[in-house]
């Protein structure tokens, strides 16, 4: 991660932190222990990547993409856990990106950053790689038993982006308003 990336992007740091938590949470829910690991060497991500899912999201004054780069072993492991077959691997990785971003959505909602998700697109191949992110983005890497996963969170904030503040106390039973 470029140093100082989060200095001008406190929200990206927040989102990144929550992403790490929900990734650990998601796999824990399937009894799969994973842990954060260091980034592979520059082209290590691409050499290892067999399946890449990307899912867009949009909020008020914010938009971006979550990219999941899974090794073949990762795609196989998740697919088998879900009872699918080899031909289902692309769909499985797509669904995991959906679940990950879905959980992130719940966390962000409580931080005053509501987002809506698009549907995932998945690509399968050897040594697939993607273009450089247009704006702020952050990679994280996780290791599972015999496999590796990379996540890239891209986020573009409009100049007037603001986190939603806690709303005023709700109207109570018995309250009456006259217009």
């Amino acid at each position, binding site marked *: 991660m470029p140093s100082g990336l989060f200095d001008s992007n406190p929200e990206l740091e927040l989102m990144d932190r929550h992403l790490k938590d929900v990734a650990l949470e998601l796999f824990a829910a399937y009894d799969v222990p994973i842990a954060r690991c260091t980034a592979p060497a520059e082209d290590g991500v691409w050499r290892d990547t067999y399946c890449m899912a990307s899912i867009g999201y949009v909020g008020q004054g914010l938009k971006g993409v979550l990219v999941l780069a899974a090794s073949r072993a990762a795609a196989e492991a998740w697919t088998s856990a879900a009872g699918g077959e080899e031909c289902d691997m692309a769909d499985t990785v797509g669904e995991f990106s959906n679940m990950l971003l879905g959980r992130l959505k719940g966390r962000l909602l409580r931080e005053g950053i509501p987002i809506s998700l698009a549907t995932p697109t998945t690509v399968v191949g050897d040594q697939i790689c993607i273009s450089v992110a247009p704006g702020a983005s952050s990679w994280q890497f996780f290791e599972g038993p015999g496999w590796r996963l990379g996540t890239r969170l891209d986020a573009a904030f409009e100049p007037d982006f603001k986190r*939603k503040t*806690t709303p005023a106390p709700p109207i109570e039973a018995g309250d009456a308003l006259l217009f």
Partner: protein
Amino acid sequence: MVRALPQESHQVEAVGDEGSALAAIARKAPQVIIFSVPAKGGPDLARRLRGVENAADAYLLAVLDGTPPAKELSSLISAGVHDFMRRPFSNVELLERVKAPERLLRWSRSLSKPGAFDFSGALDVASLRAWRNLGRLVADDLAEMATCLVTVTQGYPAHLGVEAPCATIAMSLASDQLELRLSLVADPAAAAWIRQTLLRDPEAPDSAMHDALRELANTAGGALKRAALAETIILSTGIPRDESAARFPGKHDCWSLDLSPGSGCLGLVGEIRKHHNERISAEQLSEGMVLAHDIRSEGGVLIVAAGSRLTATSANRLAAMLGPRYFLEVAPAA
């Protein structure tokens, strides 16, 4: 084409004209329909094939000569075609294209396997303050309504039987495919309290007592909805209704609401259920469905917001405005 599809795994019926095709579809619902697109009238043919009742869920695969203009492709898609193949095609390609709906079927089966995928991972309702404090929230509103004291304890009142009067209200979080159900169950003393204190008629008939219990369920729903709003969660509320049996087989949270000493006890049950949204045409909209997304005009103006619960009036209005070819995602009526 028939020869290309292995007999062990495929039941293939081949016909030479539209009439035979429609008859064959009517006889036995196909999972996949492969048809040649004529030079003219392809979309209409697709619509007619789709129009047979048995074909409602079929996967439509259109075979084309060469590459037709983009406009025709999009007309075919609007008419219900799912995928295309261009002549000449190999048997391998045919097999791959026919596998797609099989994958979709396997996927939908795997979704119903417990713990396979958690599509509602977005929102953990049980962790919301509003949910955790539900007993107290409802008790406070009841106390307000009847100017009495209501004490709250965790846990379902042990003495409440399955036959006790029960009213339920369903609340939808359509975008997360979740439904929350609140139920209120009254013991005989509480039923008497309802007659005496709320209806002011100790002899009020059962129908009146049930109506009042439904309104209490409505009040409970309102309390949850307003509290959830403070946590930026917007719930769509249904119309409360009677439940014939006070039975709660799934996972649920419960509270016991004890009315002023000696006035009986209400059981409050909160259930969080996952459901699958349906994708239907505007013509199929009906009362009780909840929209999972905004409906906007072509200019982007909001017509109906996501989360709106449809009444018969709004369902008819949208059906007339949008027509049968406009598809929407809805949470089913609770």
